[in-house]
């Protein structure tokens, strides 16, 4: 980047632009324009393949969405599988409980560990420690990064063990699983999780020591709530404004609109407000239900009962990782093999809703089936599109308070602010090649870059 904007020149116009190309899940780009010391425009553009999935799910059998929608994301396939199963079982009037439901949570714990740890060490920590990439971080701190990779591997192994494969698990079906593990098969996993628990405590101490920007916002938090536990698979939809609604009413409270310039739908609540899903929302609404160890680690890390600083999400993710490990151990300890690996789910005509807490927040699925179980209509609302408006508001708020920073620093901080949300694109953050253009009000626009890589597939 060759642009150098005088830091104190806040009278003219400034444009901050970040292009991000992703491999599978799509692309996102950031554009911020400031004028007269104010933020005039903020755009976060996210391209979302799930829209195509909704179309080609039509006409498929009711047993197919878990495998099909898993392909939406290589980082959180379990989230898609679980939300799809819950929605279809709801449509068919079937409830899955007991050890099979426990195994679903266990699988999901694996995904949380895998996804959170990847984000903490490889995507987000470099921002806080002043490194341009995970690689640069690894060169100076190989032990820390290796510790992260070891912890992540425990999550991978758990998904592999329960799901049959570490990416896009093949063992999940509507009603449960094709095969369930024996107690004996879970025993070595328990040992690995005990080791991972120590590592997660170290990790929480590590990220709590980062220099975290002082920035808080008044969010409306939305998450699932489960009476008995920190909600992951199913629950009621709750918000920090007092909303309590069954998942079946998701459509009544969450509205999506198409915004020009972006293929993503932006979600908002009844009165048009932006809201936030994900670690901060879950933590702020449900922190009392975290495991004892996770609550203690949160307190040691300086987190109160709620967290309104998006840059602290790295600490919350770390606490949630510890919770997921504790929960996985507890599930293994009480596990008895179920009589059958799955409940039969005979098709019937109807509409079903399902929501789970993907690592990045609430993931909602809705299916309408005919009497043979063929999908007539499908709707998928992923967390990143729900957070799109909140991310834009974060950017606007952050830029407005930090206009004195030079363009390069400010652009970097904006990228970091986007990474607070762990956008649901495994590699998007790594195609963030920057294009910064500035104009000073007299149409004398200058371009730095673009330094774009070849269009990524």
């Amino acid at each position, binding site marked *: 980047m060759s642009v150098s904007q005088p830091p104190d020149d806040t009278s003219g116009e400034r444009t901050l632009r970040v292009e991000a190309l992703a*491999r599978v899940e799509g692309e996102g780009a950031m554009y911020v324009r400031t004028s007269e010391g104010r933020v005039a425009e903020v755009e976060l553009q996210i391209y979302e393949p799930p829209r195509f999935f909704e179309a080609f799910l039509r006409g498929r059998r009711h047993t197919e969405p878990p495998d099909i929608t898993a392909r939406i994301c290589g980082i959180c396939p379990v989230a898609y599988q679980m939300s799809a199963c819950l929605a279809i079982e709801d449509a068919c009037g079937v409830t899955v409980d007991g050890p099979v439901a426990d195994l679903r949570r266990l699988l999901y714990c694996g995904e949380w560990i895998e996804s959170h740890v990847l984000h903490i060490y490889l995507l987000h920590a470099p921002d806080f420690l002043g490194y341009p990439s*995970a*690689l640069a971080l*690894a060169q100076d701190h190989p032990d820390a*990064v290796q510790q992260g990779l070891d912890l992540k591997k425990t999550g*991978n192994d758990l998904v592999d063990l329960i799901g049959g494969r570490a990416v896009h698990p093949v063992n999940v079906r509507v009603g449960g699983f094709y095969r369930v593990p024996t107690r004996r098969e879970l025993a070595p996993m328990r040992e690995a999780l005990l080791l991972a628990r120590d590592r997660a405590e170290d990790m929480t101490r590590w990220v709590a020591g980062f220099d975290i920007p002082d920035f808080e916002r008044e969010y409306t938090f939305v998450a699932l709530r489960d009476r008995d536990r920190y909600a992951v698979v199913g629950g009621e939809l709750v918000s920090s404004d007092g909303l309590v609604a069954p998942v079946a009413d998701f459509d009544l409270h969450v509205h999506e609109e198409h915004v020009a310039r972006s293929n993503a739908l932006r979600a908002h609540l009844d009165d048009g407000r932006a809201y936030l899903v994900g670690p901060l929302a879950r933590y702020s609404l449900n922190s009392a239900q975290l495991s004892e160890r996770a609550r203690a680690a949160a307190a040691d890390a300086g987190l109160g009962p709620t967290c309104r600083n998006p840059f602290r999400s790295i600490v919350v993710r770390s606490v949630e990782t510890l919770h997921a490990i504790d929960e996985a151990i507890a599930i293994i300890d009480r596990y008895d093999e179920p009589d059958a690996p799955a409940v039969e789910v005979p098709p019937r005509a109807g509409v079903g809703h399902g929501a789970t807490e993907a690592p990045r927040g609430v993931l909602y699925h809705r299916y309408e089936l005919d009497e043979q179980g063929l999908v007539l209509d499908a709707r998928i609302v992923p967390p990143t599109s729900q957070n799109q408006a909140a991310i834009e508001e974060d950017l606007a708020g952050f830029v407005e308070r930090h206009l004195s920073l030079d363009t390069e620093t400010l652009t970097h901080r904006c990228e970091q602010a986007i990474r607070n949300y762990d956008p649901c694109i*495994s590699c*998007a953050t790594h195609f963030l090649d920057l294009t910064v253009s500035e104009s000073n009000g007299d149409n004398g626009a200058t371009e730095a870059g673009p330094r774009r890589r*070849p269009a990524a*597939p």
Partner: protein
Amino acid sequence: MGNPQRHDDGVGPTVARRLAPLVEGEVELVVLDGEATRLLDAWDGADVAVVVDAVRSGAEPGVVHRVQVGPDPVPHESAASTHGLGLAEAVELGRALGRLPRQLIVYGVEVADTAAGAGLSPAVEAALDDVVDQVLVELALASLTPDDPP
């Protein structure tokens, strides 16, 4: 490594499928989506690793690049792999963490089409036999003990 749902990005998995009936013994075939940390786990403990991936460097589609990973960083961006935190990053991450195989050889096949959809474009399809042969030669050389003449 690669994504078979992205046309030519699936060249690596296709080569692996062709190799499956042709290799035996201590050779392990692993198909990956290209995520760096899983790549490190995949070659953990291996003496020799051969990676086949899709590449876009501006050369003609179907051109096969061979890169023997040495002391210098893997060329990157100019001859980028099609993955985000992908091969080049995995190699350098492995180097930083002391987790590289003794010998690491990368075959990169120049792609034409990486839009959504199955199947390879004709130029990449035509390169398959060549890549499979070359990988078999690499494996045969690797199976010789260091004292054997190549």
